């Protein structure tokens, strides 16, 4: 039942496998960040700030027709790219699917070992928040 989320994850993992070195992976992440839908400044308020990240990250959601849509934004480029990956997998899915899908891509594309602990903690904080939100709409 998680096929669509899992497929998204597999696609991301396959894409990262094509890169030869880490700087290429970072370049790809940075470029993804540039494609992130800009967030309305009115939403960039303290109550939407995600704690656990060294850079500023804002996360908002809406629940529509049984699906949870997320939008997130950051002032840092690499984090913006990571947000893009997370949104690709989790946004627009049902709460049940979100809860059931583990973010394997972090481990499988090597993000956990190549991002500083503070930043990968920030990524984990974002996914925890997404899952907690899904839990509240279950």
């Amino acid at each position, binding site marked *: 039942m998680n096929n669509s989320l899992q497929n998204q994850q597999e696609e991301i993992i396959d894409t990262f496998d094509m890169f030869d070195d*880490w*700087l290429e992976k*970072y*370049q790809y992440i*940075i470029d993804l960040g540039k494609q992130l839908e800009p967030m309305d400044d009115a939403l960039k308020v303290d109550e939407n700030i995600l704690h656990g990240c*060294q*850079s*500023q990250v804002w996360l908002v959601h809406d629940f529509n027709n049984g699906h949870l849509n997320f939008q997130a934004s950051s*002032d*840092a*480029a*690499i*984090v913006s790219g990571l947000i893009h990956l997370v949104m690709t997998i989790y946004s627009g899915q049902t709460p049940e699917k979100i809860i059931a899908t583990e973010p394997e891509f972090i481990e499988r594309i090597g993000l956990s070992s190549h*991002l*500083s602990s503070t*930043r990968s903690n920030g990524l984990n904080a974002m996914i925890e928040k997404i899952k907690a939100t899904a839990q509240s709409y279950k």
Partner: protein
Amino acid sequence: MMRHEFPGLQQQVHGKPLVYLDNAATAQRPQAVLDAINNYYLKHNANIHRGVHSLSESATELYEQARNSLARLINAPSEKDLIFVRGCTEGVNLVAQTFVRSRVKAGDEILISHLEHHSNIVPWQILCEQTGAKLKVIPMNQQGELVLDDLDQLLNERTKFMSVVHVSNALGTINPVKKLIAAAHAKDIPVLIDGAQATPHIKVDVQDLDCDFYTVSGHKMYGPTGSGILYGKSEHLSAMPPYHGGGEMISKVTFESTVYNAVPAKFEAGTPNIAGGIGLGAAAEFMMTVGMDKIAERDQVLKVYAEQALSEVPGLRLVGTATNKSPVFSFVIDGIHAHDIGTIIDHHGVAIRTGHHCTMPIFQFYGLAGSCRASLAFYNTEQEVDVLVESLLKAKAMFQ
């Protein structure tokens, strides 16, 4: 200079030679420090000050020799004026709670500067909450220097204590502390100088400065983490009550009352960081052997070179351009977040710090969330500065 003495510098990260430019966060340790720690654990491991057996005596001797080495490094009148602490943070808290607290009441003032590390702000805010005293701040200018025009008003009849940083960890500014101390003393106001970033770079003479207290951080001056020194004038230390109660700091305990030990033991409750103290003594000896004059001279050569090299990076803006500064460079690059720069240049082997560097008020002054900070030590080289610049140019290209 002396680079071969530092094993930590001889390694690679991400397959590139390490370029360690995060010395203001913590420095690397020379072999002599590692050997001193190892030697203690291998051959002298025993508790100090209380045993009659040989190991305890030799451990005590090593620990007290370390205190003597540190006294010589900062030219203290006696090693008895030095208290081993965990670092500058503990030193400032100790002075706030045992020396200053009983001297202040509601409406009194404590004077610090805009360039302080959080560790020389928060202990005073806690004291102010406890006593109703007010925290006053010597302002700074765009160059990152203290503005002393209103010093006479800031040091007034309500001012009970002044606590000022010697060298700014975020900007590298070397403050005119001797002048500040003289101005405070002219009004009988005692002074603490936070020397965390000074002892790694410049010769410190506490008698010449005439400061009442001076704090030293071990790990910033090539010694172990969790080690440090609080120097205090002997008349203050004798008059101050203890900070922590426990073993070692007593001479007699009954259930009715306790007689405290003499200084410095009075302030050293519990088994201390023995290996750390001995390692710190070795760091002091190492620095005196190299020579503080030579270290300071080399720092200034590196400073001039790095200042010039960084100015050639398009879009890079130095934050803090004091005339008198140590080789610490805070900078921002137009349109690129500091964390992004730090992450990418790490992959080129370059270690810098990004963020607010525990000095949020400084960055509030500049209207910045934070900066990149490259902080150099005497063992860094011009070639490493070149690698930094090249890596910054490569990072810039990635984000454009």
